[in-house]
C-alpha cells in the first residue's frame, strides 16, 4: 500500500491538538500525573530492591505530533475517519505520561509484577489494560504465562511488560517494565 499523504487541513487539525496539549492547563495535568506515578513507585522499599533504574517522561511536542501524523495516515490508508480531537486526546493517546522500570534479570518480573499490582490496588489506580508481556522469545513467552502475565508477540529484539493505568478521569499512563 502506498503511503498516504495528509492534506494541509489535516496537518492543521493535528497542530491544533498539539497546541492544545502544550497549553498551561494540560501541561500542568500531565506534569502532576508524572509526579504522582513517580511517587507511587517510590513508596515501596520492596520494589526498590528488584530495580536497576527507573525513568519517567512526558510526551513532548515532536513525539506527539509524529504519533498523531502516524495515526492519521493509518486511518487514511484504512479508509477510516481520524477522530482524535482536543476533547478526547487524553483518552485516545494513552502514553502522554510514561514510566519505565528497568530490571536486569527476567525472573525478577514475577516479584515486580506482584508488588506493582499490589501497589496499584492499595493506591486505587485503575488498570485499563495489562500487564501484557511483549516478547519475541518463545521461552520467555512460556515463562511469562507461567507467572500469570498475558503475552503478545513482539518483532523487536527486546521484551517488555506494559500496564496502562488510569489514575483519574482524564488521563491514562503507560507503565513499562523492561
Amino acid at each position, binding site marked *: 500500500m502506498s503511503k498516504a499523504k495528509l492534506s494541509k487541513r489535516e496537518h492543521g487539525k493535528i497542530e491544533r491538538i498539539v497546541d492544545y496539549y502544550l497549553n498551561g492547563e494540560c501541561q500542568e495535568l500531565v506534569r502532576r500525573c508524572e509526579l504522582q506515578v513517580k511517587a*507511587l513507585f517510590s513508596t515501596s522499599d520492596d520494589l526498590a530492591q528488584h530495580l536497576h533504574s527507573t525513568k519517567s517522561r512526558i510526551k513532548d511536542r515532536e513525539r506527539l505530533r509524529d504519533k498523531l501524523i502516524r495515526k492519521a495516515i493509518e486511518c487514511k490508508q484504512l479508509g477510516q475517519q481520524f477522530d482524535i480531537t482536543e476533547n478526547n486526546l487524553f483518552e485516545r493517546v494513552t502514553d502522554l505520561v510514561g514510566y519505565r522500570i528497568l530490571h536486569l534479570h527476567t525472573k525478577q518480573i514475577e516479584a515486580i509484577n506482584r508488588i506493582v499490582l499490589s501497589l496499584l490496588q492499595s493506591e486505587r489506580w485503575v488498570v485499563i489494560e495489562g500487564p501484557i508481556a511483549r516478547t519475541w522469545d518463545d521461552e520467555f513467552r512460556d515463562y511469562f504465562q507461567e507467572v500469570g502475565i498475558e503475552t503478545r508477540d513482539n518483532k523487536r529484539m527486546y521484551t517488555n511488560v506494559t500496564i496502562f493505568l488510569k*489514575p483519574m478521569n482524564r488521563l491514562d499512563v503507560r507503565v513499562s517494565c523492561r
Partner: protein
Amino acid sequence: MAGTHKPAKRHSAKRIVIYNHKGGVGKTTLTINLAFALASIGKNVLLVDSDPQCNITSYLIDDITLDDLLDHSDEDEGKTIWSSIKPLIEATGDVKTIEPIQQGRRLFLLPGDIRLSEFEADLNKFWTECLERRMRGFRGVCGLSILVNQVSEAHDIDYVFYDCGPNIGPLNKVILLDSDCFIVPAACDLFSVRALKTLGHTLAGWIKSWSTIVNQAPDGIYLLPGQPKFLGYIPQRFRVYREEPSSTYRPFYSKIEKNVNSEILSIFKKEDSSLASRSIRDLRIGEVKDFGPLATAGQSEGRPMWEVSKGSPDQRDAARQSFLDIANTIIRLTESHMSD
C-alpha cells in the same frame, strides 16, 4: 481493581464553622452558645474541639476531668480527638471511633487535645501526598471528617460545630473544606475589621487548591466536600445605647459590612457564585452585643450565658433571645440555603 473499598457516605448533619483567623473575636463563646441554643430547640448538636488550645473542652468540662483526658489521650483507651486520629499519624490504621462526651440530652462534645498541634504538622505532609495522589494523604486529610461522620451517624446529629484556633494553618484548612458553611464573627474593633481583608482570599485559595486535588483523586473515595458556603457574619461585642450600637462602635459596624462585602462576598461570588448566593444585606445573620459579666460567668460555670448565676434576669433573657434568633436563622438558612 477500583471499587473494592466502599467509602463512608457523608452523614446529613450540617457542619458549620464559625471562623475568623483573627483571635479574640469571640469564636468560642459564639460557637458554644449557639450550640446550646440549637440543642434547646430540639436539635442534636456535636461540638468538635479542633483547637489545640482546647478552649471549648475546658469550657464544658471541669479541670480535673480535662487533665485526666489529656493525660491518657495517647493510650489505647484515649477519648480525645487525638486518640482517634493517632493511628493515621503513626500509620498503624484508620481513624479510631471514640465516644463523645454528652452534655445534657442533645449536646455532644468531641474533646480537643493539645497534641492536635502534632496532627497539624502532619497535615502539611498529608496534603502533599494528596497532590501525589497517595491514599495515605487522603486518609490523613479526611481523618477528622471521617471521625465526625462516625459520631454524627451514631448519635443522629443535626448540627456539627467545629471550634478552631485563630490562624490559617492546615488544620483550619481541612475544617473549612469539610464544613457545609461558615460564619464569620467580627468584633467591633480596628484589628478585626482589618483582618477581614485577608480572609476571603485565603478561603478561596483553599477551595481552589482542594478542587485540583479532587479532580485527580481516585474515584469513589471519601473526600472533603470542599464547598463551604458563606452563610453570613455576626458583629460582636459592641456596647449598646438606646437599643442601637453606641457611637463608639457604629463606625466599626459599617466598616465590617463594607469589608465583608468587598473582601469575602465579592471574592466568593467571583470564584463560585453558588458559595455566596445571598446579598450583603441578608448576610448579617445576627448580632451579639457585649453582655458584660455573662460571657465570663458562662466560661467559669460551663453553661450558656442565659443560665449563669451572674447578671440581671433582663440581661440573661436578652442573651438567650440573641442566640435563639441566630440559631433559628441558621436552621432556616441551612434547611433552604444548603439545598440550593
